[in-house]
């Protein structure tokens, strides 16, 4: 791994890219570029784009497989770009790429870094890579304290919980668990759920309570509830008041772990939590990066800082090639949507005047500069929305057609179970389906990300055990994996762990898995029960 300044050509390109980005008014963190060889690159990816990682069998397995695939030609070692955002951001260049490709990678990285800085999910944080390196050191120290066997067992158990990370879910830790650190804030929000009309503005909380028109029963109930909450928090240190989807986050904070075990959970959580941001904003993010990459590259070609515009065009069109909606290509969709949005703002097609215009001809030839600068408006979108809203607001039926999202190769028709009513036309190779269905399906992706939705709904189920809920998506969980997964969570929580899924209650306790039927409950019913401080399911 070499810093980019060791290569004069790349160092010069880096300075030009950063100069143009600043000239275009981009908001950038400090970006540190490094050059890696292909095996280092492969290893970096297996370490989740951090330069170090604790020893673990899974990375070893993936790396051994990858090396074998690279050596036997089954896998290309040419990676396009890899960046760990944050401030500073660390971007990695593959030493086998040409200078033109390296420049395009740098320009692309600029887009990602700015997106990370501006986005609504507040992805960027200071010293992220350094913090992960610090956690790796803690895990390595913990490994010696735990002993090899315990370390491997705990690490493997924690791997099972990685998919249960959801820091940006509406059911994340901050919105589902209260403890001493944010008890008062959350207590206020609970109060706000059932606001009592206030007839006068009191000058103190005591007066507020005294002057409320609550009956004695209601006041008593409220007081009792508050007492219960406080007792629960003082007894256990936390209280779950809504379903929590960020289960690894919960375990990190509240599982009864040793310092070494906590270090492993912290590393897992920190190194994987950015995946949630990626999946929720990938289309906007990759589109933003492609958009600014192209702008910067055109400047570099114009000033002859790099050569090979034809090659660049070839690579660019390859990366941005259209694919059907279910094989979504975020580069293609994001890039074209951002261009479309720029056009909307440039021609004033977002103004009320345009929307209220009834003459179709006028609408089609509409060109009135908007009051907002297109780029400023686009930045505002980055700061305020994620992919779901991005697609809901801007992906029209015409664009679904224009981006070929509803064009499906015939070989996939049976696999997708498409019926004749959904197909609107076909030719020898493809079928075209109803664009409305495409948008619906693409939006649906953001509700479950094609993964089971698992929530923590009770932390005192059986002898202080956890109760998890699989939210019904009409699909069944893989049954033979329920036992090992529950066993792994049990290993971390050190108590019974249960799972409700599709009318069955699975409980793993004392090295045994039991299964019994329970009445099926909807997610909304569970929330209602929890709101009333009642157990969603009795043991």
């Amino acid at each position, binding site marked *: *791994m070499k810093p980019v300044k060791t290569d004069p050509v790349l160092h010069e390109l880096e300075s030009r890219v950063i100069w143009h980005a600043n000239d275009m008014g981009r908001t950038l963190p400090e970006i*540190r570029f*490094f050059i*890696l060889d292909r*095996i*280092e690159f492969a*290893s*970096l990816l*297996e*370490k989740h784009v951090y*330069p*170090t*990682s604790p*020893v*673990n*069998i*899974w*990375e*070893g*397995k993936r*790396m*051994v497989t990858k090396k*074998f695939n690279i050596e036997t030609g089954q896998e290309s070692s040419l990676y396009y770009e890899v960046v760990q955002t944050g401030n500073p951001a*660390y971007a990695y260049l593959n030493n086998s790429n040409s200078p033109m490709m390296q420049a395009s990678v740098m320009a692309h990285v600029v887009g990602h870094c700015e997106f990370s800085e501006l986005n609504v999910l507040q992805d960027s944080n200071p010293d992220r890579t350094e913090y992960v*390196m610090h956690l790796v050191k803690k895990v390595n120290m913990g490994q*010696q304290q735990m002993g090899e066997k315990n370390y*491997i*067992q705990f*690490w*493997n*158990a924690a*791997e*099972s919980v*990685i*998919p*249960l990370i959801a820091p940006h879910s509406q059911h994340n830790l901050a919105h589902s668990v209260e403890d001493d650190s944010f008890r008062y804030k959350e207590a206020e929000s609970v109060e706000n759920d059932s606001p009592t009309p206030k007839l006068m503005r009191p000058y103190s909380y005591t007066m507020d309570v005294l002057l409320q028109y609550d009956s004695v029963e209601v006041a008593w109930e409220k007081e009792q509830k508050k007492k219960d909450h406080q007792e629960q928090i003082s007894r256990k240190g936390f209280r779950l008041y809504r379903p929590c989807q960020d289960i690894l986050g919960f375990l990190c904070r509240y599982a009864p772990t040793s310092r070494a075990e906590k270090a492993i959970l912290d590393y897992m959580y920190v190194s994987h939590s950015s995946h949630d941001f990626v999946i929720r904003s990938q289309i906007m993010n990759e589109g933003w990066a492609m958009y600014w990459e192209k702008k910067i590259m055109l400047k570099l070609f114009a000033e002859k800082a790099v050569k090979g515009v034809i090659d660049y065009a070839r690579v660019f069109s390859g990366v941005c090639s259209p694919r059907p909606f279910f094989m979504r290509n975020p580069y293609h969709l994001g890039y074209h949507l951002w261009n479309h949005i720029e056009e909307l703002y440039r021609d004033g097609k977002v103004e009320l005047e345009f929307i209220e215009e009834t003459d179709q001809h006028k609408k089609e030839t509409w060109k009135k500069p908007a009051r907002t600068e297109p780029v400023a408006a686009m930045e505002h979108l980055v700061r305020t929305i994620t992919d779901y809203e991005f697609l809901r607001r801007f992906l029209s039926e015409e664009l679904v057609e224009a981006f070929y999202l509803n064009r499906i190769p015939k070989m996939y028709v049976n696999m997708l179970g498409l019926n004749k009513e959904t197909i609107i036309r076909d030719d020898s190779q493809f079928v075209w389906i109803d664009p409305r269905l495409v948008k619906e399906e693409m939006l649906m992706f953001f509700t479950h990300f094609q*993964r*089971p939705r*698992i929530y923590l709904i009770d932390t005192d189920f059986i002898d202080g055990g956890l109760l998890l809920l*699989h939210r019904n998506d009409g*699909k*069944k*969980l*893989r*049954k*033979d*994996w*329920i*036992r*090992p*997964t529950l*066993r*792994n969570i049990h*290993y971390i929580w050190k108590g019974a762990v249960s*799972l409700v899924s599709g009318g069955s209650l699975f409980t793993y306790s004392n090295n045994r898995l039991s299964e019994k039927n329970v009445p099926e409950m909807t997610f909304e019913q569970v929330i209602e029960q929890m709101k009333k401080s009642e157990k969603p399911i009795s043991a």
Partner: protein
Amino acid sequence: MQEDKINSNESEGVFNDFIDEKVSDMIDEILNEGNLDTLGDRGSEIIVEIDDIVVPTFSYGDGSEGQGGGGQGPGREGGKIRFNLPFNKFMALLAEKLRLPNLTKEGKGKIKEVSYEFRTFAPVGVILDKKRTFKRSLRTSIGTGTYAPAQGRYDIQFLRRDKRFKVPQRVEKPRFKAVVFYMGDISYSTYGQRLASEKKMVNFIKNWLDFNYGARNVDHRFFVHDVKAYEVQENEFYQVGNIGGTRAAIVFELIYQIAFGEYDTGTTNFYGFYFGDGEIFGSDGQEIVQILKEDICPVFNRIGVVEVFPSQWSKLIVELEKEFVFDRIVRLSRYRSNSDTVLTIKKLFAEPGQE
């Protein structure tokens, strides 16, 4: 950034250790069942398949396929990990399991073979020598007082300076030449189970000697006899058959003649393995004993005599036992059932008394 090189060597090492354990289990299984067919062709790589390991998670899918995770961590998806195991590594593991000593090689070995082996140790490197590191750490911990059982302190500190890594070193080895004579009695009914057992043992002997000497340095020669003895090709060794009288001494005589006539006895290592039903007639037994004692033992490294599925009339080993009990050169074994494969191999190659 402190790291100069990004790599996954340590994690790969952990995975390779895991694979080693699996291979070791697999070899145990092979040995318990006496199934040496896995050895494959001479010197070829062995293709090993083990259950894939996958992290169990809550996921969608058909629960009917595969089985749940067997351990605390790795689950099984029903898939397989397939990899090639180098022949030499496989044989080394097999030898370790069977506790077979390296064969004593003789000869000048003028031609050198160069290889790289982990023979030395250094404070820096890639592959941590866990045993050596632990010993040094224990010594340091005792010295610094963090490990003092008498005072109830059991902490062992692993300091950087105590770490020792395996470092490859260029090793030059003399190249030895070996000749192996396989002798078979074609007068008995060599088919079915007998043939399969004989093939298993011959296959193992070939691989074992190839592993010890290097495949290019070993001549494997096949001889059969009834009342006459003659050399055959390997495939014919298992095919020719004749019902009639038999005389085993002549095949021992023949290999002795060939050893002296065709090879330099000063630089060549000779091995001979006889397979038959052990039914001998007349003075055949005494003649064999005489040839072995006077001619063969002084120049051969090892002679193995195996009675395959012996009958009540099998007398060859009875005769030989009178002269060669616990002999360093001449090894005798009765192969009565498939479970005797490993025992026979041990008798042929282990140190006397260690089998």
